[in-house]
């Protein structure tokens, strides 16, 4: 549980369902930007893009990558909590990714083959991604922050939503679950 922000008592989805009649009559609001989402911060489409980007940052090989490990869950949770100061960076960054992909490849990020996804990430990393959005937010800032959060979510403890089943710790050859005070760890470690 995030130590700083209070846990949400209902999911956004439940709230929206409960007030759907009102919403249909309400003007379209920019934030939160979605009517239905499985996530706390990302829209389904944003989540799919971030998930695909994370999977290039830590790809699947003989061991699970970021997608299987659920890194998107970590990032989404933290953007709604401890990392909330990065919300506008992610919103703008993902708009920029969409714009750059359209300019370069005429497709969405999730529809690109891996080689072109990596090419796009290298553009972001070197701060040379095309698109008007990048005049307002730094592509390399966004990318570096995403890399950092991916590493946190993949190599940190499972309790934060990522590193599913301690996949990265198994990969590294670390004994799991961690022992506490010579007693088996209680359930809250994951």
């Amino acid at each position, binding site marked *: 549980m995030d*130590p*700083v922000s209070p846990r949400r008592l209902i999911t956004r989805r439940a709230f929206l369902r409960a007030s759907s009649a009102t919403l249909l009559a309400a003007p379209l609001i920019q934030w939160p930007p979605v009517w239905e989402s499985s996530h706390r911060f990302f829209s389904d489409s944003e989540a799919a893009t971030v998930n695909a980007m994370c999977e*290039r*940052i*830590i*790809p699947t*090989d003989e*061991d699970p*990558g970021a997608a299987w490990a659920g890194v998107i869950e970590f990032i989404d949770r*933290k953007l709604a909590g*401890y990392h909330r100061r990065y919300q506008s960076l992610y919103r703008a960054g993902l708009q920029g990714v969409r714009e750059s992909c359209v300019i370069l490849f005429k497709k969405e990020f999730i529809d690109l083959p891996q080689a072109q996804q*990596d090419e796009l*990430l290298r553009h972001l990393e070197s701060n040379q991604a095309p698109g008007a959005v990048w005049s307002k937010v730094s592509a390399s800032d966004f990318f570096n922050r995403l*890399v*950092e959060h*991916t*590493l*946190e979510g993949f*190599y*940190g*403890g499972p*309790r*934060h939503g990522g590193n599913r089943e301690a996949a*990265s*710790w198994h*990969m*590294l*050859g*670390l*004994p799991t679950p*961690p*022992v*506490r*005070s*010579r007693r088996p760890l209680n359930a809250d*470690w994951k």
Partner: protein
Amino acid sequence: MSLKHVNAVVVGSGAGGGVVAKELAEAGLDVVVLERGRWVTPDEERKDDLRNQRTTALGVPYGPDEEKEPRVFVDAQGHAQVVWPADGPYNNNAACVGGGTLSYGAMAWRYMAQDFRMKSLYGAPAGSTLEDWPITYDDLAPFYEKAEWEIGVAGDQSGDPFKAPRRRPLPMPPLPDSRETQVLKPAAQRLGWHPFYIPMLRNTVPYNGRAGCMRCRWCCGFACECNAKCGTQNTVIPTALATGHCELRPRSIVAGILLDAKGRAQAVEYFDERDRRLTQTADLVIVSGGAIESARLLLNSKSTLFPQGLGNRFDWVGRNLQGHAYSGALGLFDHDIYDDLGPGAEIAICDFNHGNPGLVGGMMLANEFQRLPYQFAGMGPPGLPRWGKAHKDFMRTWFRRSIVIMGPSQEMPVFDSRVQVDPRVRDHWGIPVARLSGLDHPHNIELCRFASDKAELWLKEAGAIQTVRRQKTQQWLSAGQHQAGTCRMGHDPQTSVVDPHCKLHEVDNVFVIDASVHVTNGGFNPVLTIMAIAYYASDYIKRRWRGGGLR
């Protein structure tokens, strides 16, 4: 609202304040300890790789408050920014009962005799305020010993011919050799060096009513969930409270020290956890907030007698801020070297603390505390991308095949490396925050290169097939967890803040007892020296106490 008058109010419950509270309470003084942080119990420790005092990706569990206590950091180009406890430039240590001693790695070094006489031995480099301490190692030796036995130190320094003279051995033995020690110790010996077991403030066997270390990988930066790590919160502070003469008030934010018309301190003002402003009167005020917060408190305690801050007539309060410049190397091995037995750091050499040609001082070198996976993710060689299959391969291949050797270079103090109070930014309680500015001395860069050279040599002799230098190459403000120097001890009131007994030169009843008083900081982690000075200064206070004040 006023409270019952006490003999001593101690600001801070860390390595300095915790010891002073116990010493004075045992001597019969009535003591109140005001600690800005909270009590932490051992079973609260979450062992969270991402949230601890060493890796603050998800915040600082042991303080200070991430929403109430900012600072201001001025970078090398002079740009000032507000910083928060989890940010690197904040230069955090901790804020909780026990201070840094709750979660430190607990290396427990006596400084060497030469460390108190750096100017006489080496001369002051240009641009440094290097000076000798006004006290010697011999003055502190009995108090180092007291700290070792009363708080509890384990290790074996018998193999170290460079160590300062000592009477008694350490009370506890070192832990059994880790796999790293098994390769590093003979390698150091083959190089003609003198490896030995690092003294640590950690129970290795049952001691003082607490168990020995459980050898987990969550030590440095974490509270100890089996309570084997020795801090002031589980040793001297409980002893102080048990005397019946000591009260500890956590979540108490001290705003200023108040003087009477004669220039004696009469009280401290503080905010309690309900943000009520309270006044605690006392015969003695002991300032033990750490080098940044102690200087801040003095600077914020302005009066007609001291318009620039208490004890700051000559603008030396907050000056000479220093820490330790760490450098060393990562060694990669062609075989598994990982045993998952903490704390990780175990074996050290002091062959390079002094007498290095062309250099002033030096550093001890030791293997590092265990790297957790997320920490290791930042250790790739230059040129390794931080993402993609290459980085994943690096992690998978080398995590169990790596050893890191690092050392804390002794810094040359710099006058303009300093703590001030910010003219505009205030904390939650309206108190001006600490403003950090300046750069460390360029000599640190040379020491860091030297440290990395020796670390690489050691690792290669131990069998590393590749080494990656972890070397500081730029000047920056140095403080952090080893922060020191801001209320320098000295004979001359014009070039120091406290006298040789830690008393403010011009105020009879205010003492600064923490690493602020360190003239220099040794090539070692400073905490045992802080504790020794606390015992030493308390001894002075006890001998001169005559009820209501000092003789």
